[in-house]
């Protein structure tokens, strides 16, 4: 809801997500799909639309789309059709995009998102269809020319279309994040928004609660969750202002400018579109047999929701902790082997502090962290076995990451072994107590908290290596004796 001058307005959001299907080769040609190569070096004669070139469908792309459909409990269409969407643009070599219009490969499905206070929302999926990506035009190289790179031309995309079921920018972001994590679990899209492998078109409109839908505007190609929310909030507020000041919203395509944080009309797209869709005569209809669909269903991996359930129910993790671990597949992939046969709660807490913290600080993805889960497991065992305490463990982890040495070696070399020997600790305690009459009196006069100060002193003298449990016991014993 937004509060306008004249009252409350409800924001209505529907999303069209273009997800690059993870494949080696393009949707209709044998050119590579990998990122970041020199311009026009991954372009087949088909992708450049040379005369007489013909498309041949990539089986993997079809399977990836079906897999994605199955993961969101969607209807898989046994019969689908590739159509031509006709329009002229310099980075569209054929003069048409091969897409699916009236008969997409995947029909209605749904995705559940989790908002604050455990609120669950179902976002309905209208359809998923397969289509080709276009090339890239660079406009800033010259005042008179645009530079065209066709490396992206023909790359397989899934267009995932939602119903207008989202009511806030936060819900839209949660939906995209959830969708992205599902795609990553499936391995059907890497979800990399910076590289444009996952792009959002947002359809935004506003209405009085209970009224019919208002006129919508489409914000094209938003490539980060932050921008998505900014764009939606800006656009919704713009609608309210226009309507409240007696104006009218014109249905149009708009672009989000991340510098200024505003959306602006795309003049070039203003010319009324008439895409003249028709079935591509170079390709017959695509018919899928039940066996293929079932064999793909059998290949479905454990998805985020199931994993979260398991983490909470069988591993006893708190819902929010489990939520953080499953949201990013790489985090779950690190945590699980590390937690194998260990105290899951201890592992979860340590991993989040040490590993995720380290990755964050260094700007690495979790899989790029040099310390692998099994090496990290050895460190956890040292903590669990009382050899070192958690605070020391963090130091050891950082050193493991920098030097590549294993936990045991570092603990031994640096003598970080925890001091649990009572005799040794008692001597240390006695000297401290002897020289801290004031604090002792405070304790005797009922200030229990002062215990913490004593523990601190012991940790200083033992470089943090004292076993806190034993230190506490001894302190109580000594301070309360006589």
């Amino acid at each position, binding site marked *: 809801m937004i509060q306008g001058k004249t009252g409350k307005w409800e924001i209505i959001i529907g999303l069209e997500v273009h997800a690059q299907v993870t494949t080696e080769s393009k949707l209709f040609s044998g050119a590579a799909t990998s990122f970041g190569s020199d311009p026009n070096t991954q372009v087949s*004669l088909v992708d*450049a*639309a*040379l*005369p*007489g*070139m*013909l*498309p*041949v*469908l990539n089986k993997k792309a079809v399977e990836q789309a079906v897999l994605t459909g199955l993961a969101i409990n969607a209807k898989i269409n046994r019969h689908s059709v590739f159509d*031509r969407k*006709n329009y*002229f643009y*310099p980075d569209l*070599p*054929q*003069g*048409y995009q091969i897409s699916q219009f009236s008969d997409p490969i995947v029909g209605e499905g749904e995705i559940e998102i989790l908002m604050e206070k455990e609120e669950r929302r179902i976002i309905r999926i209208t359809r998923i269809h397969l289509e080709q990506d276009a090339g890239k035009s660079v406009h800033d190289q010259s005042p008179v020319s645009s530079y*065209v790179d066709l490396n992206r031309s023909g790359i397989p995309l899934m267009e995932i279309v939602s119903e207008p079921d989202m009511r806030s920018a936060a819900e839209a972001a949660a939906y995209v994040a959830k969708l992205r994590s599902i795609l990553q679990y499936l391995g059907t899209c890497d979800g990399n928004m910076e590289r444009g492998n996952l792009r959002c078109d947002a359809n935004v409109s506003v209405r009085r609660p209970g009224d019919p839908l208002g006129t919508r505007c489409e914000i094209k190609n938003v490539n980060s969750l932050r921008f998505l929310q900014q764009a939606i909030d800006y656009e919704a507020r713009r609608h309210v202002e226009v309507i409240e000041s007696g104006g009218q919203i014109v249905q149009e395509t708009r672009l989000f400018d991340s510098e200024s944080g505003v959306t602006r009309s795309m003049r070039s797209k203003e010319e009324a579109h*008439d895409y*003249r*869709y*028709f079935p591509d*005569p*170079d*390709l*017959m209809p695509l018919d899928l047999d039940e066996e293929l669909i079932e064999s793909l269903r059998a290949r479905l991996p454990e998805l985020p929701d199931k994993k979260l359930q398991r983490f909470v129910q069988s591993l006893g993790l708190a819902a929010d902790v489990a939520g953080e671990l499953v949201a990013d597949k790489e985090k779950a992939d690190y945590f699980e082997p590390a937690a194998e046969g260990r105290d899951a709660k201890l592992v979860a807490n340590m991993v989040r502090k040490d590993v995720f913290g380290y990755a964050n600080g260094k700007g690495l993805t979790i899989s790029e962290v040099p310390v692998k889960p099994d090496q990290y497991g050895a460190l956890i065992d040292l903590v669990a076995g009382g050899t070192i305490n958690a605070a020391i463990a963090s130091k050891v982890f950082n050193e493991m990451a920098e030097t590549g040495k294993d936990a045991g070696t570092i603990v031994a070399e640096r003598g970080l072994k925890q001091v649990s020997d009572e005799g040794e600790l008692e001597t240390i305690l006695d000297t401290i107590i002897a020289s801290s009459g004031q604090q002792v009196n405070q304790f005797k006069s009922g200030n229990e908290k002062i215990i913490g100060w004593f523990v601190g002193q012991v940790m200083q003298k033992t470089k943090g290596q004292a076993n806190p449990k034993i230190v506490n016991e001894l302190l109580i014993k000594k301070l309360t004796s006589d």
Partner: protein
Amino acid sequence: MAALTELTIAEARDGLSRKEFSAKELTEAHIKKMESTRILNAYVLETPERALEDAIASDLRRGNNEIGSLEGIPVGIKDLFCTEGFRTTACSHILDEFVPPYESYVTARMRAAGSVMLGKTNLDEFAMGSSNETSYFGAVRNPWAPSGTDQILVPGGSSGGSASAVAAGLCLGATGTDTGGSIRQPASFCGIVGMKPTYGRCSRWGIIAFASSLDQAGPMTRTVRDSAIMLGAMAGFDPHDSTSSKHVVPDFEDSLGKGIKGLKIGIPAEYRSGGIDPEISGLWEKGSKWLKDQGAQIIDITLPQTKYALPTYYIIAPAEASSNLARYDGMRYGLRVNGSDLTETYMKTRAEGFGPEVRRRIMIGTYVLSAGYYDAYYLKAQKVRRLISEDFETAFKSVDAILTPTSPTPAFELGSKSDDLIAMYLNDVFTVPASLAGLPAISVPCGLSSNGLPLGLQIITPAFDEITLFRVGEALENAAGWSPRPVGAQV
């Protein structure tokens, strides 16, 4: 022995194997003929050096007993087939001086079978026409002229250059493509054999597309046997064309000489109506009698939707063409005419690059696909197309082949129909139905009109039954008892 340029492919094949002449000599004779007969404008690009290279290489292979099915045979290639390193234009200004860095699958197969490329033959721009008058490189002349006149006739189209070249001895055979009759109608006009295989028989890869669901490559030759030999080299599965068929390619030539005893031949009533020249219906009667005399059974059949085939074709073909030709935009290859901005560059390039007929068909195709008209025109046409195809399925329950005229008229005078579109379109009235149904069909020269012009009859068989097509074709050829040579002012 007849002049080398008068031989059939089969005769040349025997002469070469008997060492009566070399591929080099055979090729040189054709290069000479090609150069001395430029008045026909049959070739838009002559490639004599490449031809001699091919021929010498062929003679060497023969020395090593590596002998392909077209070993040393000089052929013309319709300029709709992309030829690696040789300008390919579809006879349109918009492709300008385009030189493909790749070879079409069909011509690659022919070359692997030993054929020798003499050059690229003329056609209607983007194969859109029935007279070869829409070519950017100018009209092609039919080597035939009405007896006692020096009237200049069209060769038919769109494969007019190939038809004229084969008829006049400028090659032993040539490739054509047929979308609505573009092989069969010019073959009939020029007195040669023109064959359109089943859709999917020959790969479309590397052939410049006109209407993808209709386009098929096929052989243009002087005899049915030559047609069978050449198709054998052209046909075959190509993984790069999703519409290429995996059907086994039989030995077509092997099907010849077996007669037609017991075959059931259908005569469709509907083909009698509609502007058909009495001489041609007369020849049609004669043709069915010939087949009857050779032991075939003649059966009257009906193809009820026939009259709707042509209007159906003139919706579907332009619709597909309007999209297929969108890639000619002046951005990546071919002609670019710069305007003040991108849109103007597009519009100028395509206005200057395409000729009037191509522009007209792109406009029609764009219109019938545009919002509000799709159902009324395009979808309607696709449904009628289905009915037309079902007409044939029904007919083939009772017959093995169908006999019809190829064209309602003999070759006509250059320029005489260019300003009456519908009249021009009607040339394909008998050839279009088989195209829409994707069926194989062949035109065989069966006689001369009263003023001495060649006339062809068409045979249509079920999908992938080219064997029967050739058998019946051979029967007509034998009965006609001649292999026509052009008589007229042109050669």
